[in-house]
C-alpha cells in the first residue's frame, strides 16, 4: 500500500487543499515575523526614519557611511569588545565542557545526578543567574572578597569586567555543551578503545588519536553554538554592567540604541545590517575552516 502511494505524484486520498491550508499559518507566521522584519530593516536602513513615517526621506547609504563617524565612537569598540568576549568564551568553554563530559562519562554511580546538576543553569533565567553572581562578585560582602581577600571591583573593574562576565557565562553554559560531548563520547565504538588498550596505547595517545578525532561532529556543533551565541550576547551585559566598564557588546549596543532612541532608527537599522554581515562572515569562515580540516583528516 505505502509503496504504491509513494509512486503516485499526488496522494490519492488526501486533498492537497487541506494540506496547504494546514501549512498556511506557519508560512504566514514565518513570513510576518522573520522575513518581513528582515526586509523592512533593510529598507529603513536607507532612510532617516525616526519613529514617524511622515516626512521620512531616503538618504541612500548615509547611515552606512555615518556608521564610522557619527555614532560617538561607540560602535567600533563594541565590535571589538564582542570579539574579545567571544575569544574569552569559545575555547575555555570547550575545554571545561569536554573535561566535565569525560568525568561524567566514566560510568560511575550517580553520574546522572552530576549531569543534571551541571546542566541546571540552562533552566535558570539570565536574571536569576546574573543577580546571584552579582552577590558572589560583590566587592565588599561577596565570598571572593571575604574568604579569598581578593581586592577587586570585579564587575566594576575597567580592565577585567568582561572576564568576570565570561566566568558567569561559562558557569551557566558549560553543562549544555557537556551533554552534547557526552552524546558524542557515547557514539564512539568501544572496540576502538579495546584495540588501543591491546596495542598498549597510553591514555594520552588514546585521547588525542581516538577520542578527539571521533568527537569532531560534537566539537563542530559546540563551537558553532558557542560562536553564534557569544557574538549576539546582550542580556548578561545588560544585567551585570549595563554596558559600562568597557563591556559594551554590539548586541547590547543595538538594543540600547533602539530602546533608548539614542540614534535615529535608520541608523540602528544600518548598524543591525553591519552586525548581520559581521556574524555571517565569521560563521562562513568557521564553516570553511571546519570543512577544510575535515578533508585533511
Amino acid at each position: 500500500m505505502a509503496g504504491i502511494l509513494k509512486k503516485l505524484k499526488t496522494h490519492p486520498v488526501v486533498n492537497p487543499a487541506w494540506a496547504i491550508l494546514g501549512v498556511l499559518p506557519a508560512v504566514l507566521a514565518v513570513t510576518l515575523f522573520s522575513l518581513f522584519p528582515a526586509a523592512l530593516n533593510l529598507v529603513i536602513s536607507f532612510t532617516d526614519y525616526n519613529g514617524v513615517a511622515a516626512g521620512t526621506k531616503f538618504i541612500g547609504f548615509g547611515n552606512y557611511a555615518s556608521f564610522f563617524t557619527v555614532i560617538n565612537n561607540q560602535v567600533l569598540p563594541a565590535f571589538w569588545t564582542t570579539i574579545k568576549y567571544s575569544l574569552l568564551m569559545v575555547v575555555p568553554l570547550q575545554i571545561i565542557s569536554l573535561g566535565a563530559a569525560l568525568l561524567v562519562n566514566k560510568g560511575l554511580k550517580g553520574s546522572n545526578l552530576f549531569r543534571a546538576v551541571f546542566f541546571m543553569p540552562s533552566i535558570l533565567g539570565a536574571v536569576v543567574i546574573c543577580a546571584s553572581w552579582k552577590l558572589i562578585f560583590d566587592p565588599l560582602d561577596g565570598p571572593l572578597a571575604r574568604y579569598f581577600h581578593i581586592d577587586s571591583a570585579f564587575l566594576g573593574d575597567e580592565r577585567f569586567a568582561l572576564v568576570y562576565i565570561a566566568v558567569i557565562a561559562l558557569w551557566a553554559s558549560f553543562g549544555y555543551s557537556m551533554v552534547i560531548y557526552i552524546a558524542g563520547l557515547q557514539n564512539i565504538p568501544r572496540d576502538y578503545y579495546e584495540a588501543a588498550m591491546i596495542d598498549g596505547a597510553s591514555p594520552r595517545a588514546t585521547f588525542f588519536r581516538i577520542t578527539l578525532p571521533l568527537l569532531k561532529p560534537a566539537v563542530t556543533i559546540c563551537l558553532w553554538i558557542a560562536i553564534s551565541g557569544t557574538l549576539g550576547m546582550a542580556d548578561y551585559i545588560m544585567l551585570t554592567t549595563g554596558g559600562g566598564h568597557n563591556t559594551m557588546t554590539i548586541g547590547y549596543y543595538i538594543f540600547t540604541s533602539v530602546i533608548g532612541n539614542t540614534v535615529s532608527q535608520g541608523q540602528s537599522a544600518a548598524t543591525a545590517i553591519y552586525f548581520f554581515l559581521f556574524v555571517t562572515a565569521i560563521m562562513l569562515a568557521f564553516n570553511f575552516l571546519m570543512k577544510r580540516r575535515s578533508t585533511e583528516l
Partner: protein
Amino acid sequence: MSVMTRNKRIARNVALYAALTAVLLFMLYPILLILNISLKTYQEYLVSPLSVARGLRFDNYKLVWRDMKVLSRALTTLWTTAAALILNTVISLLAAFPLSRAHFKGSGKVYLYSLASMFFPGSLVATIILLRDALFVYGSPPALILMWGTGSLQLNIFMLYNFIKSLPRDLDDAAFIDGCGYFRYIFTIAMPLMLPIVTTLMLLKTIGCWNDFLSPYIYVLDPDFRTLSTGLYLFMGERATEWNVYAAAIFTVAAPMIALYIFTQRFVISGMVSGALKG
C-alpha cells in the same frame, strides 16, 4: 596483581568523585548563597553577609510577595505562556504533518523556506514597527503572546517533521480511506502518538517563557502585565541595596523552575540538546 588493579581502581574512583563533587558544589554554591542570604534580616546581612542564617525567617519572602506583586505577575506569566504554547503547538503541528508527509506539491520548498527563515537577521526596529503600526498590539500582552507563539516555530517544525517520519504511513492512509478528516486526523490520531515530543517541546517553551525577561520588557509596556522575570529585573533597580530582600526575590522566581527541573530533568536535557544534535 588483581589486588593492585583493584586498589588502583578505587583510588581512581575516589579522585573522580572528588573532582565531580567539587564541580557540583561550585554549581550549587550561587543558589545556596542566595537561599542563605534570603533568610537573613538586613542587620544580619550587613554584619555577616556570608554566615549561615540564624533560622528560617520568611519575612523577606513576605515583603517580596507584596512588593514584587508576585501573585499578579505569576498569573500574567502563566496565562501569556499558556496562550503562546497553544499558538505555538497548533501552528507547528498543522505545518509539520503535511510537510513531513509531502502531501502537496512543493512541500519540500516550503519546508526549506521555513527552516531558512531561522537565519534571517532579526530586527528589533522592524519588529516593533510591525507590532505597533500593522498589528496594533505593541505594548500589550497580545504582542508578547504573538512573539512567544511564533518564536522557535522553526525548531518545533523541524523536530516534529523528523518525528512524524518515524510514524507509520499506513496508519494515516487507512484512516483517510475510512473517511477521517485531515485535521481531525492530525489532532485526534497523530498527536496522541506524538505526545512524548509534543510535551517535551511544550516543556522547553514553558521554561523559555518563564525565564525570558527581555521580550516582556520590550513588547509589554503596561506595568499591570509584567511577567515574573521582568518583574525581578525591575525589582533589582528598586531594591538595589537590600540584598537580603532581593535574594528572596531571586529565589522566588527560580524555585518553580528548579522544582520543575527536578521532576523532568531527563526530558529537559534530552529535549534541549536534541535540537542542536539533529541540526
